[in-house]
């Protein structure tokens, strides 16, 4: 055990923060910023799903709430984005608490919980698509006002560093959580809820705390998404794509680990980007979608040969390098 437990996080974050100084291509910066947004959403999922064992299929509900709140607070109420962001996160946390209260109190677990979250995300999507306040099917457009005070950065590096700051904070938070009493309770609930309850763990309270925290973190991803693209509609905010990204990244990276979502998001999106560019150069775009096929195959291989995620695979290799001692 290291005596400075936050050292690895600090190293990774500093490393990521220095990246834009070397790689100045806008494509890379764009990719990095988007990867950080997905990392945030995935980290939110990881706290509930990875540590708490409550697999949500509808994290879009938190992402979308954050995204819409961020956009609507600015467009409809003229609130500055720096103020809108904590409000949107609080709203995400509130939605998390509400969904958690309704489903955990009804003792929904496993696939039932997954289905309920999926249903909530769909209900939110359809409502946002129909309701005039959210712009209906036409969506909301945040006016382009470049300036740090509007959280719209002329320099893409600033946007990336802002997202990275959030990622750093959640990495530290997740790490602290994994070593805290609450974290231990959460893992206990994941491993065996009855046993945990028999030992005096208030399973409902633990799960509620986890989903509330998870909602806030994933909502922050939605906020940053809004500021990056400045346009939202119901399918972007509450669509299944983000639910899938949020759960794929930790699964690929390593479930219930601090770095899993980050590794997963970078590998997943990086792989997509590399196959896209490679095949665009190779075929000249003659066969559209061939990169997606390759991406899918790589994903299957990844899941088949690294069931504990990329981090698990790396640990296995490291262990073998050091020489397995009895």
């Amino acid at each position, binding site marked *: 055990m290291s005596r400075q437990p936050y050292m690895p996080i600090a190293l990774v974050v500093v490393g990521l923060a220095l990246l834009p100084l070397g790689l100045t*291509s*806008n*494509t890379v*910066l*764009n*990719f990095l910023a*988007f990867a950080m947004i997905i990392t945030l959403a995935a980290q939110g999922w990881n706290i509930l799903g990875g540590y708490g064992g409550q697999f949500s299929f509808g994290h879009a509900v938190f992402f979308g709430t954050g995204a819409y709140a961020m956009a609507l607070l600015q467009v409809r109420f003229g609130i500055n984005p720096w103020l809108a962001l904590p409000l949107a996160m609080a709203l995400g946390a509130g939605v998390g608490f509400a969904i958690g209260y309704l489903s955990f109190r009804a003792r929904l677990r496993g696939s039932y919980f997954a289905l309920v979250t999926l249903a909530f995300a769909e209900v939110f999507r359809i409502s946002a*698509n*129909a309701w005039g306040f959210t712009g*209906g*099917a*036409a*969506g909301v*457009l945040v*006016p*382009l006002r*470049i300036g740090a005070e509007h959280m719209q950065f*002329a320099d893409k590096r600033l946007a990336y560093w802002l997202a990275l700051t959030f990622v750093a904070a959640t990495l530290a938070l997740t790490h602290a959580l994994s070593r805290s009493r609450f974290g231990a309770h959460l893992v206990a609930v994941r491993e065996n809820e009855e046993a945990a309850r028999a030992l005096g763990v208030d399973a409902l309270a633990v799960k509620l705390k986890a989903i509330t925290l998870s909602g806030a973190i994933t909502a922050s991803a939605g906020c940053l998404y809004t500021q990056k*693209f*400045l*346009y939202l*509609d119901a*399918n*972007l905010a509450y669509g299944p*794509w983000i639910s899938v990204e949020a759960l794929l990244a930790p699964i690929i990276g390593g479930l219930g680990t601090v770095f899993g979502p980050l590794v997963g998001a970078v590998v997943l999106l990086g792989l997509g*980007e590399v196959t*896209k560019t490679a095949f*665009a150069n190779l075929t000249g*775009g003659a066969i*559209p*979608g061939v990169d*997606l096929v390759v991406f899918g195959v790589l994903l299957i291989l990844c899941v088949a040969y690294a069931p504990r995620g990329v981090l698990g695979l790396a640990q296995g290799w490291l262990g073998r390098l050091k020489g397995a001692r009895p």
Partner: protein
Amino acid sequence: MTSINRRTILRGAAATGALIAAPGLVRAQAPAIKIGILQPVTGALAQDGEYGRLGAEIALNEINAAGGIKSMGGARLQMVFGDARSNPEGGTSEVERMQGEGVAAIVGGFASPIVLASSQAASRYDIPYICDVGVSDQIVGRGLKNTFRFGPGFGNVTSTAIENLVKLNDAAGKAAKTVVIVHEDGLFGAGMAKLLQTQLPPRGFEILETIAHPTPSRDMSNVALRIRALNPDLVIPSSYYAEFVLLSRTMQQQRIRPKGIYAILNGAASNFRFVKEFPDAANLVMDCNHWADPRKPKTAQVKALAEQGGRFWLYNTPLNYSCVLLLADAIERAGSADRGKITEALAASTFSDHIMPYGPTKFVNGQNMGAAPVNTQVQNGDIKVIFPSEFADAKAVFPAV
């Protein structure tokens, strides 16, 4: 027995090398100008994206074959293609890549969300952006100096559609009184339904019901059965390709025959694929949509080129073809690949050598003021123009039964 030895391989490699290098030698006169062509060629909108790209390709080939940009010493236009993957992120990331490759301008986008996000991304680098289809009125209402839309917007299309519907109905002695609206629940379908609900009743139509359906939908029987139960004179659908094809086939199977099917901005009713694959279901369906001008001689040439290799004639192709020509004209007048100069030239554009029924371009806040939709009707395996009457090549068949 012959075996492949080192010499054979070397000879082959030399020949291949020469082949690859040869066009480069011919082209080496003036530096090429890179043009970004952005289309969704994977995902839900892949068909539209493919036909959009086709139009852009035809235009680029034509310009290059005619000697490139003359004011720049015959500089060729080189396509930098980007797959927008049917979503705004895909579009934005391709804009970033195009910026990295140094494109002079970007044409395309197709769907409104993609256009909204990618034109905004392009505006950060002052890349001129010509929207090909996206009809959302927000696209040109944001004050982005780099964004131009050659085609008509949503408000324009729907008001024209309603106007022409009234004319059509009056000419038929007010044959249609009751209406059922079927629409997809996305941006354009939902917006249109809302507009029709307020605009049609004052014009003497009774709306029996408005039926929304999501995209994608894989079964339209319930919608068809509802239409049968309501028995309206007129069905007004606004959906994407697959859903409308499904609906019209189901209606045909169920023998539901209203007096007319009057589509607005419909994915299928102005699409020769639908007409060729389901001639009976398609017959006499009307649409108000983008359509190439049948009077212009170049329309037939582009159509012939587009239909090579068993492809179909869709509005995406002439729109993108025209947008690329419009851009080439602006570059020609700017005499430079400088983005600011191209934007200025576009804003001052009075280009008329396109194949859409618009007249010379005139941009106000990025919107081409002359742009207008056309009413078409499928008649015996062909798509005919029925409105505006100045260049209609057929008379509307209404009521159909």
